[in-house]
């Protein structure tokens, strides 16, 4: 497997400029001759589709929702980072780069991260020009807030709906291109396979979710921006439809899958309330600006109402353990600390799986109105779900699966190991290492789509001069047939258990063994359990209805079938990474204080998995990560 990262020449601050200069260009008239497929319409896919169409390429974009405006980027709450340094508080491109590399526990590729920090400047300009209603100061300039893992205020926001506003900006750019005839949008259409011809991505096979029609689409290049795989845990903050299918299908066609074990457990989510629960709801990290996290010092006090616990009986454990970052430590650390205090029996709420996020002091200091101004919609949402008023009683929160740093391996050009197959946003692995900092996902999605792919796509098309393969090519027919066979098989089993029932069981296996803390024995047992569950699935799942109608059970069944294979890959990766790094915490590898203990000697690399066939163990390759600018250090937020 060729894992040449194609890092450009020169010092880190010149790399992207050098890359742009060295890349070939496609002249405007020739752009009209190229067709590009984009799968996914979130911040990464949508911005890529719109920008490539603006440049003159013929773009077809696919999403499973009924409109591109609903992609799950919309649910991002807190904000987007940019090294604008509008606050004059010491920020710079280099500092954002450094914070991101450190936040990722030194497991990301330096050159990519530096470019991301550079692009962060352009993103804010572009979004403002498109009419994104960012929060403003009275003087009319843009406002900022702080996020975890940083000591500067560099997060731009639109109340607690930043993702929504950025996505609506992207959607508006797409709408303009759709009207101009440069972008063709396929909604309620799910990608079920990637087609590779002569070693290049040639197109995709899709299912129309309304009519059930299986179709092939060919193009000169394919872009996947299909998000993360957090729903492998069944309960996560992801939308119901988020899935790994597109990325996993690409993996099965030869794309390397990097670091699947890196998942982010977000510290501030509303705790689970029962078995019926279909998803978990995030409370934005921005709340940690003004909310203080605590549990009772003594396990005897957990049943008391918060108001009856005096200040000296409260343990503000993040402020105590990490005085310099306090409540704004990175997510992996905040999550693990919450688990720790709950494991000690000091958790609050039903089942003892919760900690307080308390606004009492900020309300006293700033007034209820100021807090409402900043977080009104989040407080409203919290009250809706829990029936508790967070202006009066502290919120109860607990960590939940939120984001996946792992993804398809890409080089500096965002190209996977399959030439012509590019991967953007959460679906790739490139920028966040073993842990993503808050407000960086939106930044990465937009950097990839608005500012990176328009250049690197041109270079691919100009340098490789790929031919467009007809969608009648035997490879397309073969893929279509495989897709149909699989659907018929799922519909034909007619067993005893529902798809959700299997999914829930898979989720529990993953949460228990491949969640916030992992160990070798647990992971190995998970591999066996997953394999057994998969066998049962294909014998005992019940999917009703037909293949040629709108059939939500069938859609879910295909996605869960892929999760049942992918989950095993995650566990394998977690077993082989014999160190703790960021979101991957192996109990065997920790410091005496219980912090993650990296093994830089043996694991300063991205692990990239190559599919070897069903039932065979995939091969693990490595891309060595070279740090020329940042010195590897123990991450400290104390």
């Amino acid at each position: 497997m060729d894992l040449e990262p194609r890092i450009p020449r020169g010092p880190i601050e010149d790399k992207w400029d050098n890359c742009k200069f060295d890349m070939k260009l496609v002249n405007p008239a020739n752009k009209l001759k190229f067709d590009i497929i984009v799968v996914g319409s979130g911040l990464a896919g949508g911005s890529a589709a719109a920008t490539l169409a603006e440049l003159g390429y013929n773009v077809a974009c696919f999403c499973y929702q009924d409109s591109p405006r609903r992609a799950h980027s919309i649910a991002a709450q807190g904000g987007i980072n940019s090294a604008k340094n509008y606050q004059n508080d010491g920020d710079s491109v280099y500092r954002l780069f450094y914070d991101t590399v450190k936040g990722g526990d030194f497991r990301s590729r330096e050159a990519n991260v530096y470019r991301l920090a550079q692009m962060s400047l352009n993103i804010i300009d572009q979004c403002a020009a498109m009419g994104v209603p960012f929060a403003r100061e009275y003087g009319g300039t843009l406002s900022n807030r702080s996020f975890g893992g940083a000591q500067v205020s560099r997060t731009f926001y639109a109340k607690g709906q930043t993702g929504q506003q950025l996505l609506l900006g992207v959607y508006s750019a797409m709408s303009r291109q759709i009207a101009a005839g440069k972008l063709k949008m396929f909604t309620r259409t799910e990608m079920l396979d990637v087609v590779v011809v002569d070693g290049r991505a040639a197109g995709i096979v899709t299912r129309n979710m309304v009519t059930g029609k299986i179709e092939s689409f060919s193009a000169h290049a394919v872009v996947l921006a299909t998000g993360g795989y957090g729903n492998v845990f069944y309960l996560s903050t992801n939308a119901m439809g988020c899935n790994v299918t597109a990325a996993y299908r690409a993996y099965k066609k030869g794309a390397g899958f990097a670091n699947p074990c890196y998942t982010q457990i977000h510290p501030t989510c509303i705790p689970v309330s029962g078995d019926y629960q279909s998803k978990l709801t995030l409370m934005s990290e921005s709340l940690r600006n003004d909310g203080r996290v605590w549990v009772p010092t003594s396990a005897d006090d957990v049943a008391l109402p918060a108001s009856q616990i005096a200040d000296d009986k409260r343990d503000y454990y993040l402020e105590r353990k990490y005085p310099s970052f306090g409540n704004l430590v990175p997510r992996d650390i905040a999550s693990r600390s919450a688990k720790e205090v709950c494991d000690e029996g000091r958790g609050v709420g039903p089942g003892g799986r919760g900690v307080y996020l308390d606004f009492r002091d900020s309300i006293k200091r700033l007034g209820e109105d100021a807090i409402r101004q900043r977080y009104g919609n989040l407080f409203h949402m919290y009250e809706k779900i829990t029936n508790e008023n967070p202006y009066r009683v502290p919120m109860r929160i607990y960590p939940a699966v939120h984001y996946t740093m792992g993804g398809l391996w890409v080089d500096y050009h965002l190209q996977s190991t399959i030439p012509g197959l590019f991967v953007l946003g959460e679906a790739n692995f490139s920028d966040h290492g073993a842990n993503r900092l808050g407000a960086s996902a939106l930044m990465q999605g937009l950097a990839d789509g608005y500012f990176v792919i328009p250049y690197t796509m041109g270079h691919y098309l100009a340098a490789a001069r790929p031919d467009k393969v007809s969608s009648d090519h035997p490879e397309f027919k073969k893929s279509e047939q495989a897709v149909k066979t699989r659907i018929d098989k799922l519909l034909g089993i007619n067993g005893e258990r529902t798809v959700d029932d299997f999914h829930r069981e898979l989720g529990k296996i993953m949460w228990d063994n491949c969640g916030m803390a992992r160990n070798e024995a647990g992971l190995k047992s998970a591999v066996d359990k997953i394999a057994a569950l998969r066998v049962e699935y294909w014998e005992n799942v019940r999917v009703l209805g037909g293949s040629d109608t709108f059939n939500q059970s069938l859609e879910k069944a295909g996605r869960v079938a892929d999760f049942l294979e992918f989950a095993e890959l995650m566990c394998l990766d977690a077993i082989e990474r014999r160190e703790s790094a960021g979101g991957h915490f192996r109990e065997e590898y920790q410091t005496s204080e219980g912090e993650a203990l990296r093994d830089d000697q043996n694991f300063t690399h991205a692990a990239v998995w190559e599919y070897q066939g069903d039932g065979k163990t995939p091969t693990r390759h490595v891309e060595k990560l070279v740090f020329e600018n940042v010195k590897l250090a123990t991450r400290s937020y104390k």
Partner: protein
Amino acid sequence: MKLKLHVWRQKGPYTPGEMVQYLAEGINEHMSFLEMLDVVNEDLISKGEEPIAFDSDCREGICGMCSMVINGRPHGPDQGTTVCQLHMRRFRDGDTIYIEPWRARAFPIIRDLVVDRSSFDKIMQAGGYVTANCGSAPDANAIPVAKERADAAFAAAACIGCGACVAACPNGAAMLFTAAKLSHLHHLPQGQPERLRRTQHMVNAMDAAGFGNCTNLYECEAACPKEIDRDVIAMMNRDYAKASFSHRD
């Protein structure tokens, strides 16, 4: 809790539908309304009946995918709340609940409670954007926006495009949706150059898509889960009138 449900079932766009009665058992008050339907669906599947099709995705009130009329009210009885954020504690043991899809000429039914809202996308394509190619933007702080105007733009931009306004309107009008987008852009300096042209095009697209007209009943405002203010419609009407006199394409 035990509930009696009457749910609209319709196999496809061209087959007639009907209300079908179901019993929802083992429901608890912490469930969301959609989780209650999940439980009913699991039960239906185990009995060999096809589950009730309904749209939902983020289940945190922001994607705008979920869409159903509950006891005659789009998104159900709670003010400013999407159906995914509606919880069963709002109901009482033994209640009878009627569940129907959005009903409007411009939203044809796909199946059961799922409708086709692509007409909204068409309105957006007619002008719901600022023409600003990627790469051409000046520094974000070069264009100051007064906080009050930015806040007003945001209040309108909070629209999630769910279609409740249309479902609530006896005329099936999309005035609140269209006007919200216009109000968002027209409170900002970035939206000014295309203001009249945009208004004219989006209103025309709205009419062409088969949406009805406004007769000032404000059912839309009452149903809107994001509580968009009906004043946005007045702004749109003023701009449309202005555009009709001064702007020709």
